[in-house]
Each structure stands twice: as C-alpha cells, then as structure tokens.
C-alpha cells in the first residue's frame, strides 16, 4: 500500500488529502467546491491521478459515490464544503449507514480559530453527522490528517461497511506537516470479528441436515462481503438443494435463473417466498437483518422454525427476531466454513425435501406477480419486463428511485450477478437512483446503466442530468410516469379512504424537452406496441437519456403484505379488488406504516 516517495514527506494539509486519496487507491471523487475546501480543490487541479466528478448538488455527490461503491465493492468518495455542503450530505450519509455502503465523505470546515463563532458557512459537522456515520473525525492538527484519512478508509470498508466523515478546517489544509503513508496499525478499540465460531457453524450444519422444510434468506451482507461470498452462497444452495429467497438489498447474490430461486421476499415479495418463510422448519438468514419490511407482524413471523443467523454485526443478532444459532462473522468466511463442513459431514437427503418442494410448487402456481395485460396502455410491469428482455444479455447495471417502480423493478427485472442492483433499501431515499446511476457509469464507462425511476422521485435530483452530460456519462433514466406518487397513493387507497391528498403531480414537466434542455436525449412512449423500439433507441443513444414511459396511472403494486399482517396473509393481485384494497388493513393496522 505504501508509496515509498510519500513517506515522512513535508507537505500542506491539502496536498496530504490528495496524496492520501491516491494511497488508498481512489480514482474518482464526487464533489462540489466551496470556500472551505478551496485549498484541496487547488491541489486536485494540479494533478490528474484522481479524477473529480463535479455534481450539481452535494446530495447528488453522495448518492453517486454510493452507486460507485455498490457497483465496484470499493469505497465511494465525496468532497464537499463546510456548512450547507456538509448538511446536504446528510441524506446520502444516512442512506449509506442503513444500507451498509462504504462512503468516505471529506468536508471542509471554517478555520479552527473560528469554530464555534457562528462563522460564515459554519456548522457543527461532526455533531450533525455523528448519528448518521459509522464514525467521524474533526482534524485540528495537520500532523494527524493523513493518519486520520487512512483510518477513515479502514473503518468505512471493514467490518460492517458504512459512511465516515473527515472534517478538515481550512487552516489545517494550508498548514504544513509530515505525511504518513497508510499502514496496518488500526486502533485497538476497533476490531471487527470476521471469522465465525466453528462450533456454532457445526451446530448450524447439523440443524440444516435435519431440516425438512428449510429456506435460505440472504441479504445485502452477501453482496458487501464480495463476489466470493456470492459464489459460496451458490455452492451452498447447490450442495443442500434448499430453496432460497432474498431481501431487496441482496438481489443478484443468487441468480434469478437458478432453479432454487423463489424470488424476493417481504412486503412486496412473491407468494412462494413469503409462504415458505412462514411455514419453514429451519431458516438460514445470511447477511440480512430481519427488517420490518421483511418480517411483517413479528408475533406471527415464521412461528415454527429454528433460525440460523449469520451477520458481521453482533447488534443485528436477536434485535428483532430471536435466533437459535447466531454466527457472528463475515458472510464469506462463514460460508467457506459452512460449505466445507457440509461437504465433510452432511449428506443431502434430497428426497426428504420433495414434499417441501411440492408445496412450494403449489404456491408458485399462484403466479403472484401476474398482472392484466393491456393493449392500449403500457402496464408498468410490462415496461420492466420488456426492459429486462431487451437488456439482459448486455453488461447492465440497474439503479432505482423509491416507490412502486422500485418494487416492480425488484419483482420483474431479474439479476444474475451481484453488484448489478443499486437501490435505497433502508432509508428509502427518493432521488437516489439518478445520481447513483451517474456514479455507476463513472466506474463502468462502457456498461449500460439504467435508472428505473418514478416521475416523482426523479425530480428530486433531476439536476444531476447536467453532471451526466458534462462527464459524458450516458445514463438511461427510464421513468415509469403515472403522474402520481404511486406508492403514496396506494397507501392512501389502503389506509385513508381513497382520499388522494397531494399525491398527484398536476404540473408535470415535459421530460423530453427537459432532456434536450440539459443536452441529453428525450424519448416518450405511450403505447405498448411502440415500447420495444423506443427501448432499443434508448440503448443505442450514447448520451444521457430521459425516457418518459407513460404507464397506466392507477396500477398498484401487488402482491403485498398489508400492515399488521403476517406472511401468510398476503394480498394477491387477483384478489385485490377495490373493496379488498379498501378493507385490507383493519383499524389497528392503520396506525402502522
């Protein structure tokens, strides 16, 4: 890691920042300049190893860095100024915290002598970002700057990954001091446990060998652990013959074309995945955290199963759901041991699993993702199916915003590989997808990067179209335009007597003209039979594209576990009549979200 020439060299704080980025293998930084980071920008100007991607808003820089990180497995880096620059970074920091994304955020700060004086563009950055980072630092001594940045990268990328902030006052950027290269001397208090306890893994394998109705429930932790973890997960599924489902964050770790795949689980998961979760006798949770969108009503969650939980974060164990066999460690390391032990000791009795697979086949036959095709209007599910069919053979990365379109994308776009699916799962940040697509495209310049968007979400960070044009990032923004905040409207129908309070956008911009105004390319499609050609046009244009896909305005997202209900009380599309929707959630459920 260490670069010989940089050892113990005297340099300014600003030089150290750039040197530290280089020494930590950073190629791209997403940022926005301002008064308190000008010395660092001056250094960036005078070199070309680290490329700076200028965004249009600091939130965009954060989500772009998140997309970059999620698609590469490396840390994403953002650089913003003090005050408003730092406060605008708060949303992506919390987003990265909830989805465990390694994000290094460097912020400028007013000079140390002015801290606390309500100086121009001053804010308490470490105070504001303390609860939305894994850790943060205010560097007051230039001689500690390099070591702090190295430590920041270490903390962000190891253990359960997450966002970190290094706040650097302007006088520290100007001051001269000695640079130290990265070295393996992490602080003693931070020692994430990566190797799982072998006795526990043995107990897990024994329990799995006795299972007659097993299910593997995997999550984003598998993706975070790296490609080898996904590989081992596939091996484990093949060896055991167990069915597998995944959270929103874990899509792609096991291929959607795999024969043991049940589809996503949870609130908008498939019937077969949720029913199998409810009825299983052994559940193997791998790198997921029993989120409330996954479990439904906790008191009715998988009542008859023994649970194995693999997680790198001890606080995830027994947080929401009690686990019989907890295993703390990195998913990849634990799976390595688990696969090895299974090979050595357990023999799969695939026959014993037949009745379970037969039951699953019956659930599968309910075809819970079905929808009514329409020849005049584009159904949103159809739009995603066509998008999938026309792009699946390509080097494709998908990002999303948040809402109905996100769930339809998760249901109908099928992922074969990890790191191909970037979405805001935990925080549910509308406006994530467009800048995330920019970040992915910067990391993978020749790939096809598509943001499956909603008309409401995409307007939250639309300004980054301008950044995409500037940096020749030909991202495709595929907008399922129903003129509603669809998921808000769906909940208003379910919970609030169909009173659609402020969920309809009355003054929609002309997305085609908007694309052209930014210097991109605009496409509009309103008819199902024109969709394929329009998608092909979108793929072939080497420019950022806004694709205004006009879809059925009142379509809702099913299947669905309504609030306060259990996995086996799903609302299926063919049962979702207006009346059923209106009565799906009882008075008690209405208080929930």
């Amino acid at each position, binding site marked *: 890691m260490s670069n010989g020439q940089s050892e113990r060299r005297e340099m300014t704080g600003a030089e150290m920042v750039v040197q530290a980025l280089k020494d930590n293998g950073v190629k791209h930084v997403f940022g926005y300049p301002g008064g308190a980071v000008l010395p660092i920008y001056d250094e960036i100007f005078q070199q070309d190893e680290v490329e700076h991607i200028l965004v249009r808003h600091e939130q965009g820089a954060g989500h772009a860095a998140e997309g970059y990180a999620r698609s590469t497995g490396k840390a994403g880096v953002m650089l913003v100024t003090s005050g408003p620059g730092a406060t605008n970074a708060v949303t992506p920091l919390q987003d990265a915290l909830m989805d465990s994304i390694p994000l290094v955020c460097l912020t400028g700060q007013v000079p140390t002598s002015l801290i606390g004086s309500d100086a121009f563009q001053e804010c308490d950055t*470490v*105070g504001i970002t*303390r*609860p939305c980072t*894994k*850790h943060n630092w*205010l560097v007051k001594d230039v001689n500690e700057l390099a070591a702090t940045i190295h430590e920041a990268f270490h*903390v962000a990328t190891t253990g359960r990954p997450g966002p970190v902030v290094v706040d650097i006052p302007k006088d520290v950027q100007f001051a001269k001091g000695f640079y130290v290269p990265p070295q393996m001397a992490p*602080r*003693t*208090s*931070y020692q994430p446990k990566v190797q799982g306890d072998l006795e526990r893994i043995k107990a897990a394998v024994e329990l799995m060998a006795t299972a007659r109705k097993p299910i593997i429930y995997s999550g984003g932790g598998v993706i975070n652990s790296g490609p080898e973890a996904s590989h081992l997960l596939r091996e484990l599924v093949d060896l055991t013959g167990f069915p597998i489902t995944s959270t929103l964050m874990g899509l792609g770790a096991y291929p959607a074309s795999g024969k043991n795949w049940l589809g996503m689980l949870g609130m908008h998961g498939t019937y077969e995945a949720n029913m199998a979760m409810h009825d299983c006798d052994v559940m193997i949770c791998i790198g997921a955290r029993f989120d*409330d969108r996954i*479990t*439904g*009503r*906790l*008191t009715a969650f998988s009542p008859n199963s023994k649970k194995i939980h693999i997680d790198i*974060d*001890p*606080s995830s*164990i*027994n*947080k929401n759901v009690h686990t019989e066999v907890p295993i703390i460690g990195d998913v990849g390391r634990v799976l390595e041991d688990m696969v090895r032990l299974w090979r050595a000791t357990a023999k799969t009795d695939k026959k014993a699993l037949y009745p379970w697979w037969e039951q699953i086949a019956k659930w599968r036959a309910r075809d819970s993702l079905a929808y009514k095709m329409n020849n005049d209007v584009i159904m949103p599910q159809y739009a995603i199916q066509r998008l999938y069919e026309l792009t699946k053979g390509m080097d494709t990365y998908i990002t999303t915003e948040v809402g109905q379109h996100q769930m339809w994308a998760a249901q109908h776009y099928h992922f074969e590989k990890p790191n191909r699916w970037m979405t805001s799962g935990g925080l549910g940040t509308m406006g994530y997808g467009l800048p995330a697509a920019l970040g992915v495209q910067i990391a993978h310049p020749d790939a096809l990067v598509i943001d499956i968007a909603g008309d409401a979400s995409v307007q939250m960070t639309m300004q980054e179209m301008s950044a995409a044009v500037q940096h020749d990032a030909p991202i495709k923004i595929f907008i399922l335009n129903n003129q509603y905040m669809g998921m808000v409207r769906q909940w208003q129908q379910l919970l609030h007597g169909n009173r659609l309070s402020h969920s309809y956008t009355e003054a929609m911009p002309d997305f085609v003209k908007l694309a052209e105004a930014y210097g991109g390319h605009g496409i509009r499609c309103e008819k199902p039979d024109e969709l394929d050609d329009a998608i092909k046009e979108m793929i072939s244009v080497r420019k950022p594209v806004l694709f205004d896909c006009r879809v059925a305005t009142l379509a809702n997202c099913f299947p669905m576990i309504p*609030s*306060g209900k259990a996995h086996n009380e799903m609302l299926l599309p063919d049962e979702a009549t207006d009346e059923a929707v209106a009565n799906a959630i*009882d*008075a*008690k459920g209405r*208080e*929930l*979200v």
Partner: protein
Amino acid sequence: MNAQLQPTGSAYFIAKETEKPENHTLSVLVDNEPGVLARVIGLFSGRGYNIESLTVSETEHEKHLSRITIVTRGTPHVLEQIKHQLERIVPVHRVVDLTVRSHEFGQERPLERELALVKVAGTGEARVEALRLADAFRASVIDANTEHFIFEITGKGSKIDQFIAIMKPLGLVEICRTGVAALNRGPQGM
C-alpha cells in the same frame, strides 16, 4: 373491527412488550477523545434507551482511557441490544454489564457507590437535628458557618436518597450527586 383501539404508541409492526424492565449498571471503557461521550449519550437518546445515572472520568491517563458507568433501565432484550450497540462505537474498547456479571458470580448486584454534597441551611433546633442525623449517616461536614452546613456523604444510592429525604424538612437548599461508580467484587478486572 373496533375503531376505538388504543394507539400502539409506535408505528410499524411492534409487538407488545411482555418482558419486565430491570435496572442494570454498565461499565464502558473508551478512548478519551473529543466527542466520545456525545457518541455514547447520542446512542441512548437516538435509540430511545434510558439513562438513570451516568458517571465519566479518565481512569488510565497514559493510555488515554476513560471509564463510563451507566445505570440504565430496560428489558433483558433491550439491555442486550444496548451492550451490542455500544460495542459498535469505534472508540469503545469494552462494555461489561456489571449486573449480569455479578449474577454470574452468584451476587445480587455489583458494588455501587455514589457521592453527594448536600447543603442545609437553618438555625436552632433544626440545625442541631441536621448535624445529629448527618453523624448517624456518617456524612462529614466540609463547610459550615452559623447558618448552614455542607455535608459530604458516600454510599449506595438508596442511602443517599434517604439522607436527602430526611434533610428536606431541616432546611435542604441544594444537592449535587456524582452518579454511580461501580465495580464487580472479586480479584478480576472488567
């Protein structure tokens, strides 16, 4: 359905709590660096945990280590979460639930002591009574003139509570308490 159901007080799928809350004393060993106390306190407020008492001071100067003693109240499940969440904080070295540890040793609770300074003003009979009771509680007088005393008292929280209650009618003016300092009995460290 009954539309008059009691609000759950919380959104999402919250199950009714059936476990009973308990008071536990936690010892947290941290790097003595700026912001570390804010991280610990912020964790408690942010996640809705209770702090009944908090004591903090540097205990190993050369190693820059501070020891935070927190008395908190929660169900066993929540107490386990608190411990794990504290352990996630980067400058936190160790977290020990002294109450759980004392149970493992077959003891009811760890050694817990608190110090209080108690100011009592008055003249005549009340003043004599205050001094007499202070003597009975082994509180020492650390400041006095003809109209007041300041007592220093050390002991379990309950003893200090009792002392304060007794002083109330005798001219209690103000109190300063340190919060609980605690260690487990026996030769082992945390």
